[in-house]
């Protein structure tokens, strides 16, 4: 983030946020504040790809698309970059709207912070996204992974299914899919 971004006294608007364009650091917009998080490393990105690969067949069969790390607009002045989203959106657009999202997925990393674990979880629920998939690699060695599928009830998420290391997560919702935890580590 350049110094100029730190001398901007008014809340950042969506327009100003999108005008930042492609930045060195990952920057997200939360109610006019900017959250600049450390860029993830190879294992994290590798697992994200494996997660998307596992979700795509079921998503496609249900008429949905899947993609990694796009702009997800949760509401006015709220734009996050979730690791994986599944849903429908304007194919040629700059961002997806929360109303079109069936499932959002986040993969943990050494720099998954309180912002990622707490704030974003709260914001995704507030935006009405019904399904939240949490992929938690064992750190620091990335040798195993646990997967939790959470379902929104009101403004909270509750655990609907979990796959421990070596297990397979099987779900019928939001579309039928299977996720083998060992496959996630094949990055």
């Amino acid at each position: 983030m350049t110094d100029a971004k730190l001398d901007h006294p008014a809340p950042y608007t969506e327009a100003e946020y999108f005008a930042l364009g492609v930045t060195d650091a990952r920057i997200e917009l939360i109610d006019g504040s900017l959250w600049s998080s450390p860029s993830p490393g190879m294992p994290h990105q590798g697992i994200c790809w494996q997660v998307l690969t596992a979700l795509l067949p079921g998503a496609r069969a249900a008429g949905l698309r899947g993609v990694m790390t796009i702009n997800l607009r949760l509401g006015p002045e709220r734009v996050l970059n979730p690791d994986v989203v599944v849903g429908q959106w304007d194919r040629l657009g700059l961002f997806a709207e929360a109303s079109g999202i069936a499932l959002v997925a986040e993969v943990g990393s050494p720099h998954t912070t309180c912002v990622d674990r707490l704030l974003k979880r709260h914001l995704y629920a507030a935006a009405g996204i019904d399904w939240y998939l949490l992929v938690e690699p064992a750190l620091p060695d990335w040798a195993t992974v646990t997967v939790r599928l959470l379902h929104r009830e009101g403004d909270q998420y509750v655990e609907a299914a979990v796959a421990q290391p070596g297990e397979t997560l099987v779900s019928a919702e939001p579309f039928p899919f299977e996720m083998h935890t060992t496959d996630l580590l094949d990055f």
Partner: protein
Amino acid sequence: MHPGPWTEDEFFALGECINRVELLDGGLWVSPGPHMSHQAIAYRLHRLMEEAAGAAGLMVYRAINLRIQADTILIPDVVVVDDRVPPSICAEAGDTALVAEILSPSSTTMDRVTKRHIYAAARIDWYLLVDPGLPDYQEVKLTLCRRNGDSYVEAATAKGDEPLVFEQPFAVEIHPRPLSR
């Protein structure tokens, strides 16, 4: 700048910025400059707590650097620290008796959810959440939280003419109404 995690040294090297910039596990949280009414509430709260805090061997500051852990440095609106600690560029969570945050349009979820968790996990015993009555800053509501393990429980609330009565970490009564104009 750089895509990697920010270190404390790099954070302090930023120096003074117009925005409030905080370091959170190596990421940067960049908030808008605070509203004048927000600053006025912080000032009045500071004044109201100062004498009682002093009598308890504590010192009140506003918007100082507070180290939570390595690579996490927050800038709470009001911080009450042990007055035996020599002033420096950064206070430590271990020397901090109470933190107060005043909600702003850009920080509501952060203050209510994330920072509440962080301050409790850092074992700061008291967290005062000030809801200034957005967007007009006219009707202040105070919520005092007491640490129970690694989370907070609500100990007392007050609005309007009801006083918020503290016994700990120092003895004082704070009336919400005079905090707003």
